[in-house]
């Protein structure tokens, strides 16, 4: 499944020398990052390692304090998620970021409603949005009772699916998912992972933050570890093992055999 060919192709999205400060806190420093089209990249790291911060920079929610972003070989700078979305970079947030009081179809097209435009006003074509949403969910093999259901009435897995549908509604090139399976029931996890693999088949670059080695080893091509706000290690999935990746998360490298955990088995 891992394809080092895609991994070594010219990157679609790249970040060079990224630093991010929150006042006195250094969340990220000297971070380099790249992902290619059709590649699924796993990002791992301990709590507070800076994974979410890096992803929020890639998706335009935060501005980096230092460093630059490069998209398709061109330097880019995003002042809001809207800018990143215009380039096809979408993020699925850890808490899904859905408006629970609104219907599934409205969440999917929130901020990008179909309809007649007059200056800054769009006269929303609700029926068109419903049809588009139903068709899009169908393409993703996501099943819901009705696109008119409010998202607060959905299960965790269904909400995650709606959040992914929103991220992929407009020809996404890069989809970033922050712990997509953390809030899900076991039986829902598989569905979401299959969804991720379908995105890859469509040539989308997918970045997944996860603590679950099962997720990483089920659908990633490459895995990269952050440790205390900077790059620690990375490798194609074929060249590494669960134990090694777990070691990276804890900040140990190169002596997998020495892990007490291994010796005991």
């Amino acid at each position, binding site marked *: 499944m891992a394809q080092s060919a895609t991994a070594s192709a010219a990157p679609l999205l790249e970040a060079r020398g990224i630093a991010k400060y929150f006042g006195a806190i250094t969340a990220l420093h000297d971070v380099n990052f790249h992902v290619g089209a059709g590649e699924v990249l796993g990002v791992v790291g301990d709590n507070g390692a800076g994974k979410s911060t890096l992803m929020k920079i890639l*998706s335009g*929610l935060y501005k980096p304090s230092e460093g630059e972003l490069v998209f398709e070989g061109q330097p880019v700078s995003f002042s*809001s*998620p*809207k800018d990143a*979305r215009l380039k096809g970079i979408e*993020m699925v*947030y850890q*808490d899904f*970021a*859905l*408006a*629970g*009081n*609104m219907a599934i179809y*409205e*969440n999917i097209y*929130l*901020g*990008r*409603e179909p*309809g007649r435009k007059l200056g*800054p*006003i*769009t*006269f*929303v074509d*609700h029926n068109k949005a419903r049809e588009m949403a139903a068709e899009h969910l169908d393409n993703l093999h996501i099943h819901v009772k009705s696109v008119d259901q409010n998202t607060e009435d959905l299960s965790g897995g269904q909400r995650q699916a709606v959040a992914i549908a*929103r991220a992929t509604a407009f020809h996404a090139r890069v989809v970033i998912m922050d712990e997509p399976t953390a809030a899900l029931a076991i039986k829902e996890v598989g569905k979401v992972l299959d969804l991720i693999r379908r995105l890859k088949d469509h040539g989308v670059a997918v970045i997944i933050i996860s603590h679950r080695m099962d997720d990483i080893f089920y659908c990633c091509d490459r895995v990269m570890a952050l440790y205390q706000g900077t790059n620690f290690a990375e490798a194609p999935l074929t060249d590494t093992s669960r134990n090694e990746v777990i070691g990276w998360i804890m900040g140990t490298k190169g002596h997998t055999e020495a892990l007490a955990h291994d010796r005991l088995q």
Partner: protein
Amino acid sequence: MVYSPKLSKFLESYGIVLVLIVMMVVIAMTRPDVFLTPQNLTNIIKQNATLALVALGMLVVIITAGIDLSVGSTLALSMVTLAIASKAGVPWPVVLVIGPMVGLAVGFVNGVGLTWLKLPHPFIMTLGTLNAVRGITYLVTDGAPVSGLQPEVRYLGQAYYDLGIFAPPAGIPASLILVAVCAIGLWYFLEKTNIGRHIYAIGGNPQAARVSGINVERVLVIVYMICGFMAGLGGLLLAGRTDSGFPNAGIMLELDAIAAVIIGGASFFGGRGTVMGVLAGVLIMGLLRNGLNINNVSSFWQMVLIGVVIIFAVWIDVVRRRAAVRR
């Protein structure tokens, strides 16, 4: 409470209409000679048209989980400025727009203050403007009412159409038509435009709105401007009805407006509320006052009862929500 989505749906759609019908029947039975006369019904509408406009504006704010305490003061300032302009001989078409313009201006200050100063809650900003705007109202009038407006300025607040069937002073008030136009316009805006939908999204989950590329601050400024505009329009109606601009107008009006919105089923936590609900909420409060008035119940008891109705209305909503949840 039993799990019953049907009961929940029924209460949500028709609960408030049921309450209205029951109230009308009860009041009609206590004073059949007075309540159902065209003149009394005309009066109910005229007396509550101002509250209806202000409450519609308040609805938009409450949908975003906000609150605007300054609407009563805004109404008063709009009322006295247009009255002063009218007396000074400013052409009436200009006078007509002065009220709503003053409202827009106060709303702009509220919205910008709230978002640029990053105040923790709109309660603070609008508590400030509640006082400041009332103070300005007293300053420009020296605390004295301004009376004697041009007939064209009074028209919306005073005119009614007897249509050849009603005996004066009964008829369809012009203010009812203004309320209807505003209600339909607002409904269309909230349901069918992207900004209207963004207002609901901000009330449901501001973070979701933000990451969807919505300029939350800009939408909030628009929201408080709509609320101010409606309060200014309310000032125009009240000035017309009373032929004056009095600086004490609209004191505690913000509380009536909030009550009408909440009775109408909007959620204080944002994201929920409808134009129809607000109109029903205004009517419930108006009918209650009228029913007690024509039965010679003191206004002190009216306050007690309105208080009970507010609590009851929210409790009905709690029951409805519980009935919707399977356990």
